[in-house]
């Protein structure tokens, strides 16, 4: 197990290099530079442009800029935003809880509904429920996120008025951020001062529901389909027949003997969905004006804010990699045959 962990860690080094090269190259391939974008429509004196670029260190040859970037990284320096002048790490830390809250909510939604739908579809194989769930999940998987988000907003927010259109909390509330998680912060605030903050928690929850559903739709579809096919495979195993021959209740046969084994491939899929979630967060946050990492990166790209783009993406990529790494270890916990392998 230890050597397995070290082997996986060793593989991370080239991965990180690849990511730095990609982000460094891609952002510079977009026409325009940070100075031009800042100036906007006004005409710019070439001398002033050159001076500004020199101040930002962007007049050096590309390889020199890359070497600077990497050496800063190796010194643990993630740089600062060209636009706001505040540190990239600081901005990330402030915005990340919003994205994490959204992603967790989406994942809870996707895992709970996906597992349930997959298990029931497998047990009631060939039934209307099974066909329905599989049809819907294929639709969900193929749905473009931005379109799906807009449809939900149109229906639930605009037409029915059930949920707010955008943001994390109504402007009427003034909540001091303590954890950065709006649900926790509003709950704490409501507990501390019920009169001033009445209904803040519910308001935060209502803001969260739609974006979480939109972001969770694709993972939900993937998890439901994977759970179903994995369950069907395990249900045919001899040991499930053994379990039934022991006189165990159907619930015990399904949840203890079947689902436990069926979960192994599903776990991997859930881990892989973290990448999808981060990608989806960019679109979802833009649609719902959710002040998180996704929106931050989109804004940084349009401002050609090189350090934010490069390092922001690097941090997000690291998160995805670390999550998959944890999933691999969990995989070993769920499956004794892997745990015992040398």
């Amino acid at each position, binding site marked *: 197990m230890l050597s397995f962990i070290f082997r996986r860690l060793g593989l991370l080094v080239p991965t990180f290099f690849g990511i730095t090269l990609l982000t460094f190259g891609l952002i510079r391939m977009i026409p325009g530079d940070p100075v031009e974008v800042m100036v906007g429509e006004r005409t710019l004196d070439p001398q002033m442009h050159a001076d500004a670029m020199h101040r930002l260190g962007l007049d050096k040859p590309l390889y020199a800029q890359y070497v600077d970037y990497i050496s800063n990284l190796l010194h643990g320096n993630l740089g600062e935003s060209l636009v706001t002048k505040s540190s990239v790490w600081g901005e990330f830390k402030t915005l990340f809880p919003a994205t994490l809250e959204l992603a967790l909510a989406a994942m809870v939604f996707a895992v709970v509904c996906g597992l349930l739908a997959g298990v029931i579809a497998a047990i009631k194989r060939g039934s209307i429920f099974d066909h329905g769930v599989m049809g819907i999940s294929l639709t969900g998987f193929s749905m473009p996120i931005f379109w799906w988000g807009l449809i939900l907003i149109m229906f639930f927010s605009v037409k029915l008025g059930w949920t707010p259109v955008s943001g994390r909390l109504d402007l009427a509330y003034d909540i001091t951020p303590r954890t950065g998680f709006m649900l926790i912060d509003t709950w704490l605030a409501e507990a501390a001062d019920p009169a001033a903050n009445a209904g803040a928690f519910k308001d935060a929850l209502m803001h969260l529901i739609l974006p979480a559903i939109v972001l969770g739709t694709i993972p939900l579809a993937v998890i439901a389909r994977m759970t179903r096919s994995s369950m069907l495979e395990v249900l045919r*195993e*001899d*040991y499930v*027949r*053994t*379990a*039934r*021959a*022991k*006189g*165990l*209740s159907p619930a*015990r046969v399904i949840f203890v*003997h079947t689902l*436990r*084994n069926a979960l192994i491939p599903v776990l991997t899929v859930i881990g892989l969905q973290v990448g999808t979630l981060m990608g989806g967060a960019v679109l979802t946050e833009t649609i719902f004006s959710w002040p998180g990492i996704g929106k931050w990166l989109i804004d940084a790209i349009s401002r050609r804010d090189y350090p934010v783009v490069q390092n922001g993406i690097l941090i997000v990529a690291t998160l995805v990699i670390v999550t998959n790494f944890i999933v691999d270890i969990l995989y070993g916990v*769920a*499956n*004794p*045959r892997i745990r*015992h392998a040398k």
Partner: protein
Amino acid sequence: MSLLEIKNLSVEFGSQHNPFRAVEGLDLTVEQGEIVGIVGESGSGKSVTMMAMMGLLEGQGRIVADTLQFDGKDLLTISARERRKIVGKDIAMIFQDPMTSLNPSYTVGYQIMEVLKIHQGLRGAALKQRALELMEMVEIPAAASRLAAYPHQLSGGMSQRVVIAMAIACSPKLLIADEPTTALDVTIQAQIMDLLVNLQKSQNMALIMITHDLAVVAEVAHKVAVMYAGQVAEMAKVPGIFRKPAHPYTEALLKSIPEHSKGAHRLSTLAGIVPGQYDRPSGCLLSPRCPYVQDKCKAQRPGLTAIEGGVVRCHYPITAKEA
């Protein structure tokens, strides 16, 4: 009263319009403490009969019978919940492939204790103690440390011992062994057979042994049912059935044992295969393959007739012909 009484059992698979009868009009009685061998080719309905009785075909096969009684309880009308109180406790089953019959995600100790918890409500130290006893009863060396082992850490023979321990956990009145040694190598086969027979004696269980191995049956069984294409071809006491087989199929099975054909150049075989779903003959099911076939056999299906020590499904039983 017999421990197990099956009368006219049929099991159907497939659609209502186009059903396939895997078992057709099967009769079988098993007395307390009796060893019954069920032999027959693959696909003759041996396992399906037992699975039907255990309620393991739920949602797949349709089961019809005149009588299906175990220990005075009617298994046909009993609710699924009531049946689960019997299955795994009073009737237990051992399967063919021990390597796939145990759940890979749980320790063998957990899987044995699960039965004890569900059926006997054992908890804590008593539970562990009983599991250990069972492991020792099936002669697993270093039983205490093996409780924490996962199935993939055990050999096939060991796994089968664990499966047996699980099956006898609640001292069942009837143990069904479905080809318990087929997946094991020869030396282990003998050990497992010995273990099963010893346990049968010490626990005074009835034992139904489904097998291809006539030698094993001849050695240990009190009674043998020979199955062919979903029907009982012959059922009779041991050793009578081996000395004087009444059914041509039984005779053919016995002739195909290598030891019985010493000196012959080729092993005796019965030409053809077991008829499949759609090519069953209208007369006796064996008629296309039977060496003694007559016109009546092709026209009319034989019923069961009583012979000395048992029953046979043949218009012209061999002993009767010779007499």
